[in-house]
C-alpha cells in the first residue's frame, strides 16, 4: 500500500529541491561557467569583479533582474505572452524526473524510474519548443516570430535523429528505463559510447540542436534576430527563459552521461561524484563548441538532419538489430 499524502509531500519536496538546484547550479553558475570558459577560449578574463574571481556575478545579475520592471508590449497577446516563460521553465525541470543521479547504498537516486524513461525524456525535451513558439508568436514582433518559427523547424528536424539514437540505445539495453540502461553498461568498455558510437554522435548533435545552442542557435541568433523569441521579454521573464534553456542543456548533458557513459558508475569515487563529473564533461564540451564554431544557415541545418543524420540513424538501427539478433 502506498500512503498518498506522504508520496505527495515527497514529490513536492523533490520538485522544489530539483528546481532550486537547476536555478542555482544550472542557470546561475552555468551562465558563469559559460562566460568564464568563453573568456578563457577567447583569451580574455570574463567576469572578474563581483566576489572572488567574479564568482557572484550571476547572483548579482539575478538580484538586479528581480528589481526590473515587467514590460509587456501593447500589441502582444497577454495570456500567451505571460504563459510562455513558465512553459519553458517547467519543460526544463521535467526532464530531470527520469535522470538517475547516483546510488546511495542499494537505492538509486532518481526521482522516479519511469518504465518509459527515455520516451518521456524525449517528449519533455521537445516541450520547450511549445513555450518558445508561444513566446515568439505572442510577442507580435517580427524578430520573435522568426525566432519561434526557426525553433519549430529545428525541433521538427532534430527530434527524429534524437529518437533514432534513443531507439538504438534501448535496443542495446533491452529496456526504456534510464536506471535499467545504466545497469546494462558494465565496466569501462561496456559503456554504450563504444558499442553505440554512431548513436552517440547522432544524439550529441541532435541534443545540441534541441537545446538551441551554437552551431544551431538560429532561434536566438543575436546578430540577426536580436535574441529572437525573447526579444520582448524583460527582467525576470527573460531570466526564466534562460533558466529553462540551461536546465534543458544540463538535462541533455546528464542524459548523455546516463545513456552513453555509464551514468553514476565508476571506480573509487562515490557514484554521485562520477555522475556530476561525466555531466560536466559534456557540459564543457557543449560550451567549447559554442565558443568555437560559427552558426549554421537554416538550409544547411535542415540538410544535415534530413539527409545525413536521419538516414544514418535508420541504417544504424538496422545494423544494431542485425548484430544483436545474429
Amino acid at each position: 500500500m502506498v500512503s498518498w499524502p506522504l508520496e505527495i509531500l515527497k514529490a513536492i519536496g523533490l520538485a522544489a529541491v530539483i528546481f532550486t538546484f537547476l536555478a542555482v547550479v544550472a542557470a546561475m553558475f552555468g551562465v558563469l561557467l559559460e562566460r568564464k570558459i568563453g573568456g578563457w577560449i577567447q583569451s580574455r578574463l570574463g567576469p572578474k569583479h563581483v566576489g572572488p574571481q567574479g564568482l557572484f556575478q550571476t547572483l548579482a545579475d539575478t538580484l538586479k533582474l528581480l528589481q526590473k520592471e515587467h514590460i509587456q508590449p501593447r500589441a502582444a497577446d497577454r495570456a500567451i505572452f505571460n504563459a510562455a516563460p513558465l512553459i519553458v521553465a517547467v519543460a526544463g525541470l521535467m526532464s530531470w524526473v527520469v535522470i538517475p543521479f547516483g546510488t546511495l547504498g542499494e537505492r538509486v537516486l532518481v526521482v522516479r524510474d519511469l518504465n518509459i524513461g527515455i520516451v518521456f525524456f524525449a517528449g519533455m525535451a521537445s516541450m520547450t519548443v511549445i513555450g518558445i513558439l508561444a513566446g515568439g508568436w505572442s510577442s507580435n514582433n517580427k524578430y520573435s516570430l522568426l525566432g519561434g518559427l526557426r525553433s519549430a523547424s529545428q525541433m521538427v528536424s532534430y527530434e527524429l535523429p534524437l529518437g533514432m539514437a534513443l531507439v538504438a540505445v534501448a535496443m542495446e539495453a533491452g529496456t526504456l528505463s534510464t536506471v535499467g540502461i545504466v545497469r546494462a553498461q558494465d565496466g569501462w568498455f561496456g559503456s554504450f559510447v563504444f558499442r553505440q558510437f554512431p548513436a552517440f554522435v547522432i544524439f550529441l548533435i541532435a541534443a545540441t540542436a534541441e537545446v538551441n545552442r551554437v552551431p544551431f542557435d538560429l532561434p536566438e541568433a543575436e546578430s540577426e534576430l536580436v535574441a529572437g523569441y525573447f526579444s520582448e521579454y524583460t527582467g525576470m521573464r527573460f531570466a526564466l527563459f534562460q533558466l529553462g534553456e540551461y536546465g534543458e542543456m544540463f538535462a541533455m548533458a546528464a542524459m548523455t552521461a546516463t545513456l552513453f557513459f555509464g551514468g553514476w558508475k565508476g571506480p573509487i569515487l562515490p557514484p554521485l561524484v562520477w555522475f556530476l563529473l561525466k555531466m560536466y564533461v559534456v557540459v564543457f564540451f557543449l560550451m567549447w563548441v559554442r565558443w568555437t564554431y560559427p552558426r549554421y544557415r537554416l538550409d544547411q541545418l535542415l540538410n544535415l538532419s534530413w539527409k545525413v543524420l536521419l538516414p544514418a540513424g535508420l541504417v544504424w538501427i538496422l545494423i544494431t538489430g542485425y548484430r544483436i539478433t545474429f
Partner: protein
Amino acid sequence: MLLVDWLYVGVFVVVGIIMAALPLAIVWLLAPRVDYPQKYTTYESGVVPFGQAWAQFNVRYYLFSLVFVIFAVEVIYLYPWAIVFRQIGKYAFYSMTVFLVILLLGLIYAWRKGALEWV
C-alpha cells in the same frame, strides 16, 4: 506503482509552475512601475514598428513538417519493437527490416521529389 510514478510527474508540473511564478511575484512587489506610451511599443531596431507581425507568413518548411509527422509516428512504433525483439528473435528482425526499408524508400522518394530542398 505506475500511478505513483505519474503522480510525481503531475506534482512536478504543478510545483514547477509555482516555483517559476514565485520570482515573478517578487518582481511584482519590488520592481518600479513608470508609465509612458513609448515603452509599450514593439521593438523593431529602434524605428516605429511597421504593421503587425501577425500577418500571413509563408512557413517554408511545411513539407518537412509533413514528413516529420510520418517519421515521428514511425519512431514511436520502433520503441516497443526495440524492447522485445531479443525475445522474438529473427522474425522480429526481418519484419522490422521490411518496415524500415519501406520508410527509407519513402524518405528517398521525398528527397528525389525535392521535398527536402530549401526553396
